[in-house]
């Protein structure tokens, strides 16, 4: 006996009954849509439109109100509705701009890329930054390692130096 899950879709009074995989697929689509629309001031409104439309299409595919909707139904409907295109798809735009900022840089990282980030930020060569870090860790009896770890968890990440420069340049133009 397969698990049946229930879901409410905006505007529809009836509750939709879905198989578990169909339910998961629908939830995943809606969450992805919410994510794509997070910069849209009317995202709640757009999400309601989408849910309503998905509900109408699912209703049209059901032969009776009792029917459990399966993954094929959901996949077909979601394919018709298509991926949600929000205002921006560029992740770098999500990074707040306006001033020079510290990032971790994954390219050439030894551990978290903190030293790479500090080097790019300060203009000091990365070997020097690493040496200073190791020296400070030695002098403080390992306590400074906590600073490294904290930075590793707190700093935002960019994948490459080229992207760091791109963000940085954009910031300079703005400020």
């Amino acid at each position: 006996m397969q698990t049946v899950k229930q879901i409410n879709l905006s505007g529809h009074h009836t509750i939709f009954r879905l198989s578990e995989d169909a339910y998961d697929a629908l939830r995943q689509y809606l969450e992805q849509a919410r994510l794509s629309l997070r910069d849209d001031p009317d995202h709640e409104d757009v999400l309601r439109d989408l849910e309503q439309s998905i509900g109408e299409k699912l209703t049209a595919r059901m032969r009776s109100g009792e029917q459990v909707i399966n993954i094929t139904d959901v996949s077909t409907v979601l394919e018709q509705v298509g991926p949600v295109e929000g205002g921006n798809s560029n992740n770098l735009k999500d990074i707040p701009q306006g001033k020079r900022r510290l990032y971790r840089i994954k390219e050439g990282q030894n551990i978290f890329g903190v030293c790479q980030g500090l080097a790019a930020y300060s203009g000091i060569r990365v070997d020097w930054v690493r040496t200073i870090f190791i020296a400070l860790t030695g002098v403080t009896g390992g306590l400074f390692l906590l600073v490294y770890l904290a930075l590793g968890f707190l700093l935002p990440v960019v994948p490459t130096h080229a992207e760091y420069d791109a963000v940085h340049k954009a910031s300079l133009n703005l400020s």
Partner: protein
Amino acid sequence: MENTDKFTPLRKGLLEFLILNIVSSRKVYAADILKRLSKTDFATQEGTLYPLLSKMRREGLLDYEWQESDLGPPRKYYKLTDTGHQQLVEFRQYWQFLTNFIQELGENDNANR
């Protein structure tokens, strides 16, 4: 068409003006717009259309009203605002200008050869 990828951004940018055109003739709901475009190069989907309609409404080009439907929940029927009408007129003029301009460029180049 071989260069079809190159035209993608162009089509994307034009979509908004095609919607203005479609909505200008009568009150429509989203599915009408999709259906009107479905067999054309500009075929699109709800996932693209809804955010765009919402943006156009925010910019004051469109407005909607709810209408009951026999087949399910009430639907949003869109119509153009005065600003929307005005923008459509401007777009058509600009399009006309572009068409003439492109035509002219081609002719001049041929004449100079």
